[in-house]
Structures are given as C-alpha cells and as structure tokens.
C-alpha cells in the first residue's frame, strides 16, 4: 500500500499543480481570482483531442492547444474585462460567467458526449521498485508539472516581463505611473494563465476520457491546494498540491473515500485559522 500512496500522491499532486499554477499566475500578475480556469482546462483538452484526431502528434498538439487557449484568454481580457475597469472583486466574480460561457461554447462546438483522445502514449504500467507501478501518461503529467512550474517561476521572478507583472499586481496605479503598460501586461497574464490551464488540460487527459460535464469542476477541486500553498506563490501551489494529494490519499486508504473532501476542506479551514496567507503566501496579502 505504501507504493500506491507514493504514486497516487505524486501523480495527483502533479495534476493539482498543473491546474493550480494558472490560478496563481493570474492572481500574482493581476490580483484576479479566476474561476474560469476549469473552462480553459476543458477547452484545451477538446482542442487537443481535435488536433490529434486530425493527425497532429502529441507534442505538437500540446503546443498548439496551449497557444490557442492562451490567445483565447488574452482575448477574453481585451474584449470583456479590460473595458470593465479594474475592480478586482467584480472581475473575479465575472470570471464565473466567463467560465460558463466557455463551457457552453464547447458544448456547441464539440457536443457534450465523452471523447477519447488517441492513445498517444502506452498505458501499460512500468514496474519500478517496491511494487511501484506508473504509466507513461502519469510520468508525463509529473514532468509537465515540474517543467511548467519551473518555467513560470523563471518568467515571473527572473524576467523583466515578470517584474512588470508583479508590479501591476502589487499596485497597478503606481505601475502605470512608472511606465508599465498595465493593459498589455494584464492581457499577457491572462494569456499565460489560460495557457497554463490549457497545458494542464492536455496533461490531465492523456490516458483518460474527456468528460465535458465533469472536467471543469477540477478547477474548484484544486482550490484547497492553492489556498494551503498561498494564493500568490508558485512554490506554494506545488507544495500545497502535494499536501492535498497526500492527505486525500491517506484518508482514502485509512478512513474512507467519502471522507476525502471533508478532511481536505477541514484542513484548509484549520490552516487558514493558523496561517491565513497559506504556507508560502505573502503576508501583506489582503484576501477578497
């Protein structure tokens, strides 16, 4: 059972990380908590499905789907949210409607039935040590999570663009006074956040069916992970995801699968009481 706990924690944690980084990038760069990440997640998986069915390979499909969803995210900001002004609470709440609109659009475009992406990776498990078995899709998901978090960390903390993003999130008025093109940076942030959700969508659906009715809800499932880790911390989302996955797995094994959500959200509440900003969140953060 130990091997199972390790593999499940790792792969589940990777999935949560992939989904969670999009939230954190958006919040880190714009101050907006986007509830549309699940919808971008779904959109990317469906685009990937269509591209690979048309003959495109795994990595090309991943790149194209991610870019397209990123463009969609930027377009959403430019056409809808930028004209709305910069009331962050309003924008955060409006992303609920955006998510619904995207999900409805995917239903119109692809229908609402189940979709099976091509088996681009073998699903036969590899036997590692101590009885640990892991499949290629699971390995790819873990690698994608590590690469994506690393790349976004480098972008936000090691590049001029990332510096501008942090400036906008910290104080958009002051950033504007300093010459930062706030709208452009925000559009970029939206695009990157949506693209991150897109990459997560593709990574998650490798080796599983695409169920449009349940996939978007993963955007909410990951919330405890990002709150535990800290809403504005990339390192935090990785740690929070592992913590959440570990807790859920242990509870599932030793208590019961129907207790996983109660314990996960209970842990979230306890942590918020002890450390409101999360494990790695900025102490100066004021939550909506």
């Amino acid at each position, binding site marked *: 059972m130990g091997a199972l706990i390790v593999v499940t924690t790792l792969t589940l944690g990777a999935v949560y990380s992939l989904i969670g980084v999009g939230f954190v990038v958006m919040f880190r760069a714009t101050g907006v908590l986007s509830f549309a990440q699940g919808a971008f997640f779904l959109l990317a998986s469906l685009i990937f499905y269509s591209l690979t069915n048309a003959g495109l390979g795994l990595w090309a499909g991943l790149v194209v789907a991610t870019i397209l969803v990123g463009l969609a995210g930027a377009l959403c900001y430019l056409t809808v949210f930028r004209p709305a002004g910069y009331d962050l609470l309003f924008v955060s709440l409006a992303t609920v409607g955006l998510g*619904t609109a995207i999900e409805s659009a995917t239903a119109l475009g692809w229908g609402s039935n189940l979709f099976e992406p091509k088996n681009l990776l073998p699903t036969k498990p590899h036997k590692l040590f101590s009885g640990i078995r892991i499949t290629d899709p699971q390995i790819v998901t873990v690698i994608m999570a590590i690469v994506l978090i690393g790349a976004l960390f480098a972008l936000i903390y090691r590049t001029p663009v990332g510096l501008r993003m942090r400036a906008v999130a910290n104080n*958009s*008025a002051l950033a504007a006074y300093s010459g930062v093109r706030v709208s452009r940076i925000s559009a970029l942030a939206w695009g990157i956040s949506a693209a991150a959700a897109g990459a997560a969508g593709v990574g998650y659906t490798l080796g599983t*069916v695409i169920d449009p009715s*349940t996939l978007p809800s993963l955007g909410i499932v990951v919330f405890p992970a990002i709150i535990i880790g800290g809403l504005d911390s990339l390192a935090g989302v990785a740690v929070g995801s592992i913590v959440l996955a570990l807790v859920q797995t242990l509870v599932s*094994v030793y208590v019961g*699968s129907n207790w996983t959500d109660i314990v996960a959200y209970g842990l979230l509440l306890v942590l918020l009481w002890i450390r409101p900003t999360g494990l790695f969140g900025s102490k100066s953060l004021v939550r909506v």
Partner: protein
Amino acid sequence: MTTGSRISSANMPNEGVTHMKNRRYGAAAALASSLVLLTAACSSSGSSASSGSTSGSSGSSKAPYNIGLAAGITGPAAAIVTGEIEGIKAAFSQVNASGGIDGRKLNLITSDTQNVATTAVAALTKLATENNVIASFGDILANNCQAQVPVAKAHQIPLICGTLDPEQLQPAEPYIYTEYGAESTETNGMTDIIENKPLNLAHPKVAIVYLQSSSNEPLFNAVAAKIKADGGQVVLTDPIQAQLNLSVDASKVISSGANVVVEQIIPQQLQSLSQSLTNSGSKVPIVAEATTSSYQQMVLLKNPNIYEMSLDPFVDPTSTDPAVTDYVNALKLQGISGVSAINGQSIAITYAAAEALIDALKMCGASCTNTEVNTDLQKVSLNLPGIDTDYSYTSTRHYPQDTFDLYQWSSSQNDVVQLRDDVPSNPLPSS
C-alpha cells in the same frame, strides 16, 4: 496589496488620451460581445421559430401540438439533454413528414433549466402558460424534476421526467411519468447477473463502489441485503464522492478479495477504477448500474471485464428491423449517423418516450386535450424491435422498463455485444 481598487484614466498619465480612445473601442467590443451572448441565450431558451422546432412547413392549416422540454440544456447534464432533444426530434420528424396527427404537426419547444431547481420550475411554468404545451419532458435530474411536479399537476400537463425518487413513483401520481425507472428497481437485476447468467457466482464476494447520494444508498443497501440473503458476502462497501482517481479504491477491491464489483460511478471514475484494476493484473468483473451506462462508455473503455446493465437500448444501425431503419433515417436527417452517434446518451430511450407520447396523441386524435393525453399515456405499450421492446405505462405504473439489457465489450468483435435482454427488474417498494 489592496484589492477592489478602481483606477480612473486620470490616475494613469502614461495612458491618458490613448486610454480614453481605447475605452471607446473597448466599450464597443463589450457591447458586441454582450449582444452575441444575448443572442445565444435567447436562442437556447427556444421558440417555435428557432432550431427546436419540428413543426414543418407553414402550409399546415391546423395549429400544431406544442410539446415542451424543460431541462438542463446547459450545465452538467447537457450531454444527456442534448441526446434527449435529438431523440425527440427524430420521433417528431417522422410524424410531421407524414402530415402530423390528423393534420396537426408536433412542435417541440425547449426551455433551459440550467440544472437549477428554481429555474426548472420557471421553465416549465413558462411552457405551460405562454406556450400552452399539451405535454412536456422534464428535467433529467430527479430533484429538479421533482420541483417541476407541482407545476405539472397544477396545469394538468403530463410531465415525463428523466427519473424520480422511488417515493414519487409509488404510488403512481397523476400526470407524472418517467423515462427511467427508479434505481431501486435494479436490485434483482444486479444480483441476477452475478448469481446467474453470465457470471454464475454461487457465493459471490461482492465489492460495492458507488457515488454517495440519496438515490444510490437505498439501491446498494438493497443489493447488499439480497446478496447476503442469497448466501453471498459483501466484502467491501466503498462510497465515494467527486474524486476522479480511484486507484486507492481499486487497491481496496483487490485487498478485500472480492470476486465481483458492483458500481455506480461516472465514466471517468470507472475508467480510473478499471484501469487501476487492470494495471494490477486483476480481472475482477465489474457490474455497472444502468443509469450511468452508455454505449459510448463501453466503446471508450474497451474493457471486457465490465458488464453494463442498460436502460438505454444499444441500437445496431445495420439491423433491418423497420423500427431501427426509421430511427436511423430520422437521426440521419439531423446529421447524426454512425453506431456511436446514434447510441449517444439518452437518444434511443427518449425516442421511445417520444413515440409513446405520439401513440397517446394518436389515440385521442385531432382535438386532444392535456387530460386526454394523460389518460391515453397510461394505455401505451410500445414494441420497437431493435430499439425498445417493452416501453409501456399503466394506470398504476408510470415508469417503463420491466427488463434491462446487459452488454459487454467484445475484443474479438471489436464492438459492444448484447449478452441478455431479460435482466429482471423488481417492483418499487410501496411507500
């Protein structure tokens, strides 16, 4: 960092005039986007002039029969409701092509409930009061359709729900019908599959894995009781929630020593469970409860260890049965073809339900009232070979299906095969 701060153009000197110009363009873009969304929303609520209509040409001199559908066209059940609409349109189009019922064509009017109970009530009320529907299909979710029941009764409109809780089906309530029986009618069927054909396990060790809900608990409690009464054992009861990774649950199944699994979980969960079992080298058979079964799911999973009970009949498009030919041709007119597409969720079962409604309308002819439709629905007994051979209502039973079908994926045939068409159901417990 503070939140909720509003920035005006005056505070953004670097973007000054450009910002003002951009705001105009942005406002225009926002207006255009809003108009697009508004148009989409209006078209989704449906009208006799828009895509939901099957009223045919304007040459008909008699007013059409308006039939409503108040269900979650958007939301988590959208796939199922889309299938319902396709099935209903297929049935109605055949009738309308031959001139309707005594010259009156059938007009489907849809109203989106968005899977919210309060919206479901408003949607059906609108259909009853503004569109004067003579009958209506209700929401696919039991609690939402339950909310619609008082509206149907108040306006005396026959309402065909997806499903309802057992308490709403026994005794039969006036004007209230379902396409699917309550889940608790599956108890005998699930145990029959295990103890008799095809699994033939005399003293089975059963693992029960199910989504925790008010409708599943009674079913699986009843299954467990029957298994024990018949000499078997329940070695694992594993209620789960929304998690999509069931590798831990698969491990519990293996550890429990179960030689059969009965389940009611969603497709992604079933895939996770079955894949995890397969990866561990287990070939334990999985008996899938009927309401989440689908041909598509079986084709996607391609797992011969899964035995799916089915309320939705799986239609063979190559069948020469006239009922199948009519069904396939009617769907082809909507651009739906191929074995997987014609077996999409809820299409066939709702087609059968629509045919039942058509039969009831034919019984009362050109001047049907809603109360007459209600009376005649209780006399309907449909036999659609290749689609559904026993769709019927009676005055005391307002849900169809006396038997279920059983299907399995065949690797050798690379297709879904029917193993049985006689899996028994059990009567609802009297309340």
